[in-house]
């Protein structure tokens, strides 16, 4: 495990330092040329994920979470490209690898699950065929072994009639069942990292909770690391060790999940908390953040959140706030990160209402 460490690992500080670095993204910039100009959907993102760690990537829709994941996996839809940055996985820069080498990593070392379990499975092939093809691609198992492994995997993700489900077509399964099938497919080759992009957004509440429990089990029992992409901070509390908060293509805050809940340092993070039902102070109505994410073409200097920030000052419109340390393993990109006293769901004034860390 130690031999897999990246040379850049030393730079990383914080409590998790002794763990091996699995994924390390530095200065990632992802661009999409469009008729109206080049969209910088991801603009200088740094992200580290250690072995066995569950890291959240949070932000409103459109802030670049999915494209960050696609950049890591070399799955960007045309004409999107990674314009700059390094993506180290187990110490190797994926951007230096060939398309073929990166394909071989997908589904084998890094698995991914998606938001829409309804459309993410091929409608004309059985579950067995689809999971089987992943195994056929990455392993030398013969067809009997593959059949057995598929059933075993389906059982592993909590499907009670794995033989029957294996022979089913996706349209014969419920949404929660399909997401389990997709998870089984993603972990079929025991990947070290699972990227889960809004895995429960399309599911109803009970099923959501079940899928979260399943992901938790995978972490605890199989030692999978997870990059959990979500717009929902409530999910993050349940599962994640650390959280990255993204806004308009950049990371605006990074912190261990407890720190973030006790004292968020970026006004955007705080605003995100206000959007969670039950988290905002009871005398205030449920808030939605005013305004919307700015267009990511020809971005002017200054804080990208300035137009929507309640604490905005003149300086914010001219000077881009850098992402700086504001505590142990806690970084924020706000000029006033140190001085602002932003409420978090677990901060003291809310303690009566929410005695414990939020439970999903």
């Amino acid at each position, binding site marked *: 495990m130690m031999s897999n460490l990246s040379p850049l690992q030393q730079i990383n500080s914080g409590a998790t330092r002794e763990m091996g670095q699995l994924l390390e993204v530095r200065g990632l910039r992802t661009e999409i040329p469009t008729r109206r100009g080049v969209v910088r959907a991801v603009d200088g993102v740094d992200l580290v994920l250690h072995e066995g760690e569950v890291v959240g990537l949070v932000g409103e829709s459109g802030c670049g979470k999915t494209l960050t994941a696609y950049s890591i996996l070399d799955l960007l839809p045309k004409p999107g490209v990674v314009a700059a940055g390094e993506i180290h996985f187990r110490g190797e820069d994926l951007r230096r690898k060939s398309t073929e080498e990166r*394909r071989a990593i*997908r589904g084998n070392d890094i698995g991914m699950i*998606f938001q829409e379990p309804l*459309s*993410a499975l091929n409608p004309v*092939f059985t579950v067995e065929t689809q999971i089987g*093809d992943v195994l056929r691609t990455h392993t030398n198992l013969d067809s009997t072994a593959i059949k057995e492994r598929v059933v075993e995997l389906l059982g592993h993700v909590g499907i009670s009639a794995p033989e029957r489900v294996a022979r089913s077509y996706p349209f014969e399964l419920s949404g929660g069942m399909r997401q389990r099938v997709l998870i089984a497919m993603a972990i*079929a080759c025991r990947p070290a990292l699972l990227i889960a992009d809004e895995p429960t957004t399309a599911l109803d509440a009970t099923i959501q909770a079940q899928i979260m429990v399943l992901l938790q089990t995978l972490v605890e029992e199989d030692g999978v690391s997870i990059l959990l992409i979500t717009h929902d901070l409530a999910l993050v509390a349940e599962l994640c060790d650390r959280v990255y908060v993204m806004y308009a293509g950049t990371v605006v805050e990074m912190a261990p999940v407890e720190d973030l809940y006790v004292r968020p340092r970026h006004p955007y993070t705080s605003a995100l908390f206000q959007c969670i039902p039950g988290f905002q102070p009871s005398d205030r109505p449920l808030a939605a953040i005013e305004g919307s994410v700015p267009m990511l073409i020809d971005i002017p200097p200054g804080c990208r959140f300035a137009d929507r920030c309640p604490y905005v000052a003149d300086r914010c419109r001219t000077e881009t706030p850098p992402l700086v340390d504001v505590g142990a393993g806690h970084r924020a990109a706000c000029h006033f990160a140190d001085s602002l006293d932003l409420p978090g769901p677990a901060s003291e004034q809310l303690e009566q209402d929410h005695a414990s860390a939020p439970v999903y």
Partner: protein
Amino acid sequence: MRARFLLAKLLWTVFVLFGSSLLIFGLMHLVPGDPARAMLGPLGTPDAVAALREKLGLNDSVLKQYTTWITHAVRGDLGESILLNQSVSSLLAQRLPITLALSFYALIFALFVALPASVISATRKNSLLDYGARLTALIGVAMPSFWLGLMLILLFAVKLGVLPVFGYVSLREDPVDHLRHMVLPAITLGAAYSALIYEMNRSSLIEVLQQDYIRTAHASGIPSRLVLFKYAFRNALVPTITVIGIQIGYLMSGALLVEAVFAIPGMGRLLVNGVLSRDYPVVQGAMLVTVLIFVFANLAVDMLYTVIDPRIGRKR
């Protein structure tokens, strides 16, 4: 579920066949004047006309005529040709295989060109190659088949002399010569068909390639070739098969013209000559068989659907 779906299709087929038989039968009675007189022409003596009327059963009620005709037809008896002094069914037995062979070769040619071209186009959307293929397809659809046939004859048969100009040799007689005679007619008949299949499969493949499940396959590291030819192609084929099925009717009617251009003694020729000489039993028989083929081809397509797409005909 699927049995019920297929049963419904089968009932529909029977219904269509019944309707068509009414139409085909009615046609003879829609022609103004006395069919017997029309068949015999100006030279027919009153006696001959009366004899023919008797032979065709034209003195019976229309309902009786229809039931007689259809009950005979079901048993394979389509009456006698007025001109050729042969039973219609034996005429069809000679001519139909030729037309079927021609249509079959045209279909093979069309698929052979259209499917690979559609894959190339869809995976290189808006490239020069794609534009070239689309333009060719457009011309293929727009060009009248008799003109294309003549051009092909001029080029390959007359100028280059590598293929026969026209005529027909049966497969049993000489397989190689049979094929040599069929190449140009098959291309002529299949060109427009091919263009339609190409266009449909191209657009459906482009659509399928944007679907979430294709992204899932890529995210699982499935090699691009497998994603394209297994995961995408099968889904894209569903709408394409509809076009293939519907256009089988076109193929049958197109064969009429192509047989004329290449002097192939198929059913098209039989039908055309039948119409020109007002040989109504032949016309009716040929049309009935054409409808039969069309309807069963579509039934086959429906069954093919249920094989390709498991969702069809099943409860969601």
